C-alpha cells in the first residue's frame, strides 16, 4: 500500500519497466526511465541544497520533464510548486517569494522572463532546456552524473506536504493551497476503484499542471502502470487535431473542463467512431451546459460520463455518474454524492444541517481535505474550520463557499457562490483579485469587476473603472496594466470607463445594479 506518492511510480517501474509512462510532444519515456531520471534529479536537488519540506518551483511548458520533475522533487523529500508558464513575471515572482522557493526547475527562456530581484533570491536553477555548468545554473544533461538506481533516503510520512497549488485570491494575491501525500492518495485511490484504471489505459492530461485536475491524470496513470498523454497547446487549441489525436492514440480515459469538450463538439467533427476508444469521460471545474452535455452523451456512446466536483482544497469531493436516460429531465446536472473516504454536509447560515431542498453551504471533511493555505493562517482559519458537529474531539472541515441543495434523488445540486468567486474556462477566479489589480493603478479611483454569464466559457469578465481624472485612462492601457499583474484569463475582456459607480444607500458599490446594466449591454 502506497502512503507517499512516489511509491506509485516505484511499484509500476518494477512491474512495467519498459512500458511508456508519459507521452508529450511526440516523445515518450518508459517507467524505468522515469524512475531512474527522477532518482537522478532527486540526488541533484539534494546536492543543490533541497531538504525535506523545501519548496521547489516548476516553471516551464508541459513536457516529459514536467513529470520527471514532480517525481524528482518528491523523492528528494521536497514539495513541488507548479507555476503557470504563461503567468506574468510579477505574479510568479510573488509566488516564489511567498513560499520561499530557492531551487527552480525552469528553462532558459522562462528564467530570463523572471524579475531580476526574484532571480537573485534563487540558489539554483535547473534548466530543462539551455546551457548551465555552475552550481547555481545546472543543465538537464548533468542529471546523468547522479545515481539512477535508487532515490535518496529521506524519512517521510503521509501527512508530509507533496505540492502547493496557487489559486486566485480575493485580496489581490494568489494563495497557496497545501496538499499532502495523503490528500492526493485518498483521491487517487478512490479514482482507481471507481474508474477501474488499468495498465492498458491511456489517459489524457488536458489540464495545466498547476491545475488540480492534473493530479488524477498523472498519479492514477502511475498507480495503474498506464500511460498519460500530455496535451500541449499545439493540440489543445485545435479541435480537429485533438479529435484525431484521441482516435489515433486510442485514449481511453479523458479528463478536462467542460469548455474543452464543448470546443471538440462544436469544431472537432467528432463522431462516435472517432471517440470509440474512450471508455470514461470525466469533467470538472465548471458547470456543463445541458445542451452540450446532451450532445456529448449522444456522440460518446462507448463512454461512461462523470461530473466531478470539488475545489482544489478537497481535490474532488462529490461525483455524479451521468444517467443518460435522465438527461432530458435535468435543467442543471447534479454534482452528485460524496466520494469514498470523504463526507459532505450542507450547512445553513445559522450552523445547522440543511433539510432536503433547503440551500446550504457545502462543507467537506476527510483525509482529502487541505490543512490550509501556505503562510496564511488568517485565511486558513476562515476556510478550514472546527467541525462543530463533533462534540467529543477536535476536527477540521473545509467550507467550500458553494451553495448547494440536496435533491429528492439524494444528489447535491450546485446553486451558486456565497462570494464573488467565478469560473471562466474552468479557471477559478476571484473578482476581487482583478479589482485589486485595477485599483493598484495610480490613476484609478474606483473599479468593479463583473462576471457576464457565457454559455461557452462560463463567464466573461467585464470591468467598470472610474479614473481620478476623466479621460486620463484608455481601455488598452488598463488591459496591459492588468496583464502585468494577473494571468491572461483574468484580464477583463471589456472595460467601461465612467465618471462614477452606482452606489447603494449605505455607500457601497451597487453590484446588483451594475450586473443588471452590464447584462443588458451587447
Amino acid at each position, binding site marked *: 500500500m502506497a502512503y507517499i506518492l512516489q511509491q506509485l511510480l516505484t511499484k509500476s517501474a518494477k512491474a512495467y519497466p519498459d512500458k511508456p509512462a508519459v507521452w508529450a510532444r511526440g516523445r515518450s519515456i518508459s517507467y524505468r526511465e522515469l524512475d531512474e531520471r527522477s532518482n537522478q534529479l532527486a540526488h541533484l536537488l539534494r546536492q543543490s541544497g533541497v531538504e525535506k519540506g523545501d519548496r521547489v518551483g516548476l516553471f516551464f511548458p508541459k513536457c516529459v520533464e514536467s513529470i520527471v520533475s514532480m517525481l524528482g522533487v518528491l523523492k528528494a523529500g521536497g514539495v513541488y510548486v507548479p507555476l503557470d508558464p504563461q503567468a506574468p513575471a510579477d505574479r510568479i515572482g510573488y509566488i516564489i517569494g511567498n513560499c520561499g522557493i530557492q531551487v527552480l526547475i525552469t528553462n532558459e527562456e522562462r528564467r530570463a522572463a523572471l524579475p531580476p530581484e526574484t532571480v537573485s533570491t534563487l540558489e539554483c536553477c535547473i534548466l530543462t532546456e539551455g546551457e548551465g555548468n555552475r552550481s547555481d545554473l545546472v543543465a538537464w544533461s548533468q542529471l546523468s552524473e547522479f545515481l539512477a538506481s535508487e532515490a535518496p533516503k529521506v524519512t517521510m510520512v503521509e501527512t508530509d506536504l507533496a505540492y502547493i497549488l496557487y489559486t486566485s485570491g480575493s485580496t489581490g494575491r494568489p494563495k497557496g493551497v497545501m496538499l499532502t501525500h495523503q490528500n492526493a492518495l485518498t483521491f487517487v485511490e478512490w479514482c482507481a476503484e471507481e474508474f477501474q484504471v488499468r495498465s492498458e489505459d491511456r489517459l489524457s492530461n488536458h489540464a495545466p499542471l498547476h491545475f488540480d485536475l492534473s493530479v488524477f491524470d498523472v498519479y492514477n496513470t502511475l498507480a495503474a502502470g498506464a500511460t498519460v498523454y500530455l496535451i500541449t497547446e499545439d493540440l489543445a487549441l485545435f479541435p480537429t487535431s485533438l479529435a484525431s489525436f484521441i482516435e489515433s492514440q486510442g485514449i481511453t480515459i479523458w479528463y478536462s473542463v467542460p469548455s474543452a469538450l464543448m470546443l471538440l463538439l462544436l469544431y*472537432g467533427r467528432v463522431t462516435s467512431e472517432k471517440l470509440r476508444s474512450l471508455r470514461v469521460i470525466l469533467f470538472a471545474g465548471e458547470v456543463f451546459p445541458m445542451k452540450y452535455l446532451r450532445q456529448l452523451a449522444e456522440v460518446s456512446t462507448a463512454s461512461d460520463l462523470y461530473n466531478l466536483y470539488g475545489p482544489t482544497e478537497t481535490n474532488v469531493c462529490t461525483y455524479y455518474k451521468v444517467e443518460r436516460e435522465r438527461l432530458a429531465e435535468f435543467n442543471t446536472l447534479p454534482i452528485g454524492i460524496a466520494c469514498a473516504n470523504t463526507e459532505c454536509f450542507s450547512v445553513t447560515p445559522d450552523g445547522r444541517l440543511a433539510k432536503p431542498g433547503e440551500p446550504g453551504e457545502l462543507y467537506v471533511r476527510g483525509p482529502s481535505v487541505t490543512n490550509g493555505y501556505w503562510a496564511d493562517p488568517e485565511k486558513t482559519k476562515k476556510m478550514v474550520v472546527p467541525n462543530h458537529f463533533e462534540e467529543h474531539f477536535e476536527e477540521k472541515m473545509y467550507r467550500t463557499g458553494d451553495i448547494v441543495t440536496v435533491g429528492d434523488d439524494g444528489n447535491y445540486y450546485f446553486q451558486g457562490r456565497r462570494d464573488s468567486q467565478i469560473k471562466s474556462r474552468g479557471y477559478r477566479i476571484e473578482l476581487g483579485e482583478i479589482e485589486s489589480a485595477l485599483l493598484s493603478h495610480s490613476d484609478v479611483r474606483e473599479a468593479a469587476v463583473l462576471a457576464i454569464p457565457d454559455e461557452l466559457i462560463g463567464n466573461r469578465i467585464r470591468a467598470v473603472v472610474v479614473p481620478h481624472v476623466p479621460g486620463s485612462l484608455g481601455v488598452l492601457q488598463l488591459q496591459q496594466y492588468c496583464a502585468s499583474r494577473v494571468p491572461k484569463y483574468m484580464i477583463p475582456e471589456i472595460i467601461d470607463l465612467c465618471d462614477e459607480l452606482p452606489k447603494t444607500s449605505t455607500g457601497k458599490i451597487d453590484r446588483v445594479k451594475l450586473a443588471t446594466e452590464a447584462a443588458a449591454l451587447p
Partner: protein
Amino acid sequence: MSKHDGEMKMIEQAEVKGRIREYVLEEFAKTKGINHITDQEILTKNGVIDSMGIFRLVSFLEETFNVRIGDEEITHDNLESVDAIERLVIAKSKK
C-alpha cells in the same frame, strides 16, 4: 478567373502579411500586454491566442481575404505564426 482570384488581386499579396500581423497584434497581443511579435513567433506558446481566439482569427481571415477555411484546416501548422497564417491565406486564395 474565379471570384477569389479577383479579390486577392485587390489586396496585394504583400499587404496580406501586414494585415494579419496588425490584427493579431491589435486583437490579441496588445490586450495581453504584448506589444511586439515577430512573424515567426509561435502564437499559441506564449498565450497570445487562446482557444476562442483561434476561431475569431479564422473568421477574420475568411472575411478579410474572402477565403473559406475548413474545420480540418484549423491546425497548429496552419496557424502557429504570422508567417504560417500568411502561407495558408495565399494558398487558399490561389485555389
